[in-house]
């Protein structure tokens, strides 16, 4: 663990990644102290200072009802991160369990579970989430649900591939010989061997979840106003291009920075842990 950290911080690229992630995470946590206008995360209106280009008071300008864009972006990081963490925290265990049992048990279980996974995987990722959000009320909760529904199969697939190759390994056969139960072998013997791959994928996926979630809200199927959300800010601002460019450019760059940070760290982790898919 410590060694990993040292390597992370020594490579300039991954160091940048760590810094970006830290920036995003810290500003999300301490938004109340960092945002110049914390109350602007809600439905404040100021029709004197609306639609202002970046200036000394509002370094990223103000939106169409006069709220400080910088403050709202900082609070939007909070939503993105919460969403990412929750989705991965739900999708990973589900996918892992499905993949583990399909891969280890084999036979009919494998066929049914993996065909089910294939069904989910053969709807292009965003399309499934869009279809689900079309059904559900657009709330943060449901957006998490929809993204989770499209996410778990990837973990199922990943763990399945590892578990299937591990099932012929000596240590598994040994455990079978001494009569260990199926759940014991799957969870205690095979799972630990999948962990590095899972962890790396989670770091890399943090960025992708942010991308997908912002895509949903870009289409108006995600978090609703006045809650600040990067995707809906870009969508809203895109109507006012090119005159009010700050409305789209800054939230767009914010997504880029956050995801880029997570990707840099995830890349580095993958190299260090040597977990290739």
């Amino acid at each position, binding site marked *: 663990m410590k060694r990993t950290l040292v390597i992370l911080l020594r490579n300039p*690229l991954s160091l940048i990644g760590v810094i970006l992630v830290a920036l995003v995470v810290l500003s999300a946590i301490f938004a109340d102290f960092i945002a110049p206008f914390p109350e602007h995360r809600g439905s404040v209106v100021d029709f004197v200072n609306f639609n202002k280009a970046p200036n000394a008071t509002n370094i990223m300008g103000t939106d169409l009802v006069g709220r400080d864009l910088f403050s709202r972006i900082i609070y939007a990081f909070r939503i993105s991160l919460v969403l990412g963490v929750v989705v991965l925290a739900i999708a990973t265990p589900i996918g892992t369990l499905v993949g583990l049992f399909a891969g280890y048990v084999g036979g009919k279980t494998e066929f049914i579970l*993996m*065909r*089910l996974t*294939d*069904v*989910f995987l*053969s*709807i*292009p*990722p*965003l*399309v499934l989430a*869009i*279809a*689900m*959000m*079309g*059904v559900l*009320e657009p709330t943060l909760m449901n957006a998490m649900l929809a993204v989770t529904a499209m996410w778990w199969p990837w973990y199922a697939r990943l763990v399945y*591939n590892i578990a299937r190759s591990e099932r012929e390994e000596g240590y598994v056969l040994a455990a079978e010989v001494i009569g260990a139960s199926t759940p014991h072998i799957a969870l205690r013997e095979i799972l630990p061997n999948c962990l590095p791959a899972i962890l790396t994928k989670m770091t890399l996926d943090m*960025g992708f979840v942010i*991308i*997908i979630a*912002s*895509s949903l809200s*870009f*289409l*108006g*199927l995600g978090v609703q106003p006045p809650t600040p959300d990067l*995707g809906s800010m*870009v*969508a809203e601002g*895109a109507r006012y*291009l*090119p005159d009010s*460019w700050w409305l*789209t*450019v800054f939230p*767009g760059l914010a*997504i*880029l920075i956050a*995801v*880029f940070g997570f*990707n*840099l760290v995830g*890349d580095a982790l993958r190299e260090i842990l040597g977990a*290739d898919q």
Partner: protein
Amino acid sequence: MTPVLRLLARRLGISLIVLVGVSMLIFGIARVIPGDPARIALGPNATAEQVDALRESLHLNEAIPVQYGYFVKDLLRGDLGTSLYTNRPVTQDIAQFLPATLELVLFAGILMVGIGLPLGIWSARYRGRWPDHVIRLVSLLGVSAPSFVWAVILMLLFAFFLPIFPIAGRISDIYEIERVTGFLLIDTLLAGNLAAFRDAFWHIVLPAFALAVSGIGQAARLTRANMVETYDKPYIEMAQAYGFRARRIARKYAFKPSLIPSLTIIGLDFAAMLGNAFLVEAVFAWPGLSRYGVAVILRKDLNAIIGTVLIISATFLIVNLIVDLLIAFLNPRIRYSQRGSS
């Protein structure tokens, strides 16, 4: 039966099972939509009797499995029902909008392969030197933003700020092109109208590039990773020891084995692009299936939602099938003995 044919049969079978699964999943999702589709279809001023009559004719009063039965029966006759939004058969809507999306996605796919692979190869060749660093950084940036952010940024830079490209649509109004394939780049050529072809080409560049950016990044990253791995193989070191030229080594010995894993990912990226087309079409007012899809979802147009998702999934499955076959042809191990991964 040859192994390749057996593989094809097996993949086709699985694809069919998956497609049935997808249809059930989407059908289930579409039927639990809150709100009465009949009421929505008839509009705000319809009477209760009219709503009831429409519910009856759409079988909306039956149990969901029964409704699914009707759906499958119609589907087998090539009938996906009528879109409540456009008042036309869904198949007709899809036939109209799908080519625009396919054209966009295929064009983006060409960009992805045409730019992503060379970047990856180049990066691997100069491993550890500055071209490698630059390419890796740029391709990582590419995958780090959703396509709508790229779309908006590209639009701002190259349609608004430096107005090189048009900002919306597939072709300028002044051209009336007879529709043969629905692919404007092909139809304009068939019509022999070079000016229209240029115009259509000019329209597709920006949206396709926005759609391809993350695919390009992904393809470059993967190709690089795979080639670096093969570069470490003994036969390459041998070739280097024999003094073969670097370019020849790259092309002949490192590239081909690296192509196989890249192809798999390209198939997946193609799927991602079918989804991301939803975002890019929205920004560039591209009259495609994705834009239609969003419109019908917002309007709870059941038949159209099911039809759209089914068609997109089927397209995706077909692409994956093609990719699998390509891999089978390229990879002797799969070609001859096949205990393929499913």
